């Protein structure tokens, strides 16, 4: 129910009483309402649904996620044991505080001293 695509903010204006932005989606530009993302600035990427920006894209997080995806699915020859598979999986991106008790801010929940498999 949520067709939302990433775009880059090229310009920000105030259209009467509303904060609007010109957002570039791979060469296609649309005017988008930025009232819900006051932290978004020109040059940032944001996810847009029906003409509204919903969230800023954490680019660092995106790159780290992709990087880890690329390391998955080692071929059989590379595996030593089932434990290693689970250990690798455990260290792959997951919430360190799955019940969300860690932090209520926008910071990534992967920064934690807790290591190992999720409890």
């Amino acid at each position, binding site marked *: *129910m*949520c*067709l939302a*695509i990433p775009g880059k903010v090229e310009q920000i204006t105030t259209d009467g009483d509303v904060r609007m932005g010109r957002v570039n*989606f*791979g*060469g*296609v*530009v*649309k005017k988008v309402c930025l009232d819900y993302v006051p932290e978004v600035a020109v040059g940032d990427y944001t996810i847009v*649904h*029906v003409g509204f920006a919903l969230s800023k894209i954490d680019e660092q997080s995106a790159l780290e996620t992709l990087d880890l995806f690329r390391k998955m699915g080692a071929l059989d020859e590379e595996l030593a044991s089932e434990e290693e598979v689970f250990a690798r999986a455990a260290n792959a991106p997951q919430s360190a505080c799955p019940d969300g008790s860690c932090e209520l801010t926008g910071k990534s929940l992967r920064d934690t001293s807790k290591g190992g498999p999720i409890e």
Partner: protein
Amino acid sequence: MAESGSPDFSKWSCPLPLADYPTIVMGHGGGGKLGNELVEHLFLPAFRNPALENLGDAAVFELSSGRLAMSTDSFVVQPLFFPGGSIGALAVNGTVNDLAVSGAEPKFLSASFILEEGFPLAQLAAIVNAMADAAAEAGVRIVTGDTKVVERGHGDGCYINTAGVGVLRQGINVGPNRAQVGDVVLVSGTIGDHGMAIMSVREGLEFESQIRSDCAALNGMIAEVLEAVGPAVHTMRDPTRGGLASTLNEIATAANVGIDIDEAKVPVRSEVQSACELLGLDPVYVANEGKAVFFVAPDSADRALEVLRAHPLGRDAARIGVVTAQHPRMLVARTVMGSNRVIATQIGEQLPRIC
């Protein structure tokens, strides 16, 4: 492409001061003095050719002997002018292309207009000039026509019908039912350009982009392919409404064969892809007006592709698939994921979605 400009009314001798009322009135469809004015000063100068000049009830011309092909189409596009084209250009190229993909050399066209009372003459002039340009580009002549006017509110400004006649080339026998197992499927260029160009100016959905309609006459390019590989071409089609998917499905059904394509090989301009992502549309269902698909015997596929790519309209031509005995009457695409998905014929127009 033709711009909207005012005709030069100084030479119009009609008692009605048309320069002061530069719009279509009911009388223009009446066949009387007003109608004649339109022909004399608008259509004739634009479409200039001897067959038309006689202004008889029918155009008289000669064609070489052999089999003939005839095609007709009506054009009701809104808006009338869009990035990369106009209803005028579509009206000529659409019929030229239908003849060309049937293996015929397009020769003569008729052009009938249904105009709404109040339609600006300046716009009509621009449309007619666009048709003249397209006809010259395609090497065809518009030799007969008609104009009718409907009351205000009963038309969408301007509707055009064109019918065309062409001469079938010797030794060429193409048709949707002639596609054979093993045939290579080629597409002459990027898909989805026209439909997304229209979308970009459609009220409620508009967006900014460099996307332009691919509206073009394909007869020159097709002639070169037929010249090079002739009888190796079994089927040709121009994927208009309903897009590549509908055309390939039609051919699969007509020939009772299966078609396998590789999604990664289907050429799509990145901007067109982006616009499709924005609106939730699939490029394979989006309209084209200047592209053709070819079903070619495997031995001649490379040569056909080479010829296409050497032509200005075929620079992005690509080999996208093959005809198979498996899954008859079905179009199956290998996705980027390496999985297979069936591409069914769309029911009705593809609508933008939010989900």
